[in-house]
């Protein structure tokens, strides 16, 4: 018997594919957001709203992951999504980079500026899998506990932006906005926070402005996309 030091990353295969995706996204100037939350926090609602407000201005594609059904993908198409790809994981609790790469084979990245990846509703497993995104956006809602960040610290740590949804229901729940914010910021002081209601539209203007700026920062030359559109 001999001990062989191998020093291999368990997720090296995923990281290899994620690096390849990141390179493609970067050369096409596409901003990529990996949207994560518990089931029912409002990922699909946020995307429906975002499509309604920005689809005409920012050419975007959406990849919607679910354990079963393509219901979310259908909702996003109905909301005006021109390019929507469902990923049915068939049991897996997270998306991995290989699934995303496969779903992108028919998407021309030069035709879009923004790609949303709606992950499977789960605050644990998706945190370990890099999908080549620019950042993770984590969503919670006021009908959940304001201690969600404490319960799932890795996800809040690995995300760059926090969206707190359903603020129209604040009066009917015990959710404290102040606690939620301070809980999240004690885990990740660099989180930018948006408070929104996807039902009433409150706060969404700030979210749209933030998205628009993010997209412009990654690909500052709008001609890039216009030229590609002409091709």
């Amino acid at each position, binding site marked *: 018997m*001999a001990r*062989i030091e191998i020093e291999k990353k368990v997720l090296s295969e995923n990281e290899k594919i994620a690096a390849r995706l990141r390179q493609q996204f970067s050369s096409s100037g596409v901003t990529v957001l990996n949207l994560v939350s518990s089931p029912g926090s409002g990922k699909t609602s946020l995307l429906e709203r975002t499509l309604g407000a920005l689809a005409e201005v920012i050419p975007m594609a959406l990849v919607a992951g679910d354990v079963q059904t393509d219901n979310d993908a259908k909702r996003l198409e109905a909301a005006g999504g021109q390019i929507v790809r469902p990923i049915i994981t068939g049991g897996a609790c997270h998306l991995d980079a290989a699934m995303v790469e496969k779903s992108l084979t028919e998407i021309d990245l030069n035709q879009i500026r923004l790609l949303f990846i709606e992950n499977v509703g789960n605050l*644990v497993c998706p945190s370990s899998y890099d999908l080549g995104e620019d950042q993770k956006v984590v969503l919670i809602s006021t009908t959940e506990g304001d201690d969600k960040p404490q319960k799932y610290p890795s996800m809040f740590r690995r995300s760059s932006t926090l969206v707190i949804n359903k603020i129209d229901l604040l009066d009917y729940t015990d959710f404290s906005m102040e606690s939620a914010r301070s809980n999240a910021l004690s885990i990740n002081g660099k989180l930018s926070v948006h408070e929104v209601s996807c039902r009433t539209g409150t706060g969404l203007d700030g979210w749209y402005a933030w998205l628009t700026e993010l997209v412009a920062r990654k690909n500052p030359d709008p001609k890039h996309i216009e030229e590609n559109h002409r091709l």
Partner: protein
Amino acid sequence: MHELSIAESIISTVRNEMKLNGYTTVSEIGLRIGEMTDIVEDSLRFGLDALTKGTSLEGVEVKIETVPLQGKCEQCQREFRIVEFKFVCPDCQGVAIEVILGKELDISYLEVEIDTTQEA
């Protein structure tokens, strides 16, 4: 329950190493797992057992070294152990904290039997 996917990745990496290097038997797998990976050790062991049952890796010993979360304050450079996921510098109360240890998810070593006939 992504431990099953993680277990699959571990086993395929080990099998690959066996094939590439001509190891006939692997009796022990050494893992290094950071505190921030959300891996439940029991679930991972369950996954590894289930996936190796009836294969040449059945009964393989799995040793897990857990790496505690360690941060570095970007403001005052103090390095400290992060307890209960409080990412706040104990000295200057800064909240810009870089994680320097605790994200590991590595196979550090294998205890193997090498096929010497192949080398000769």
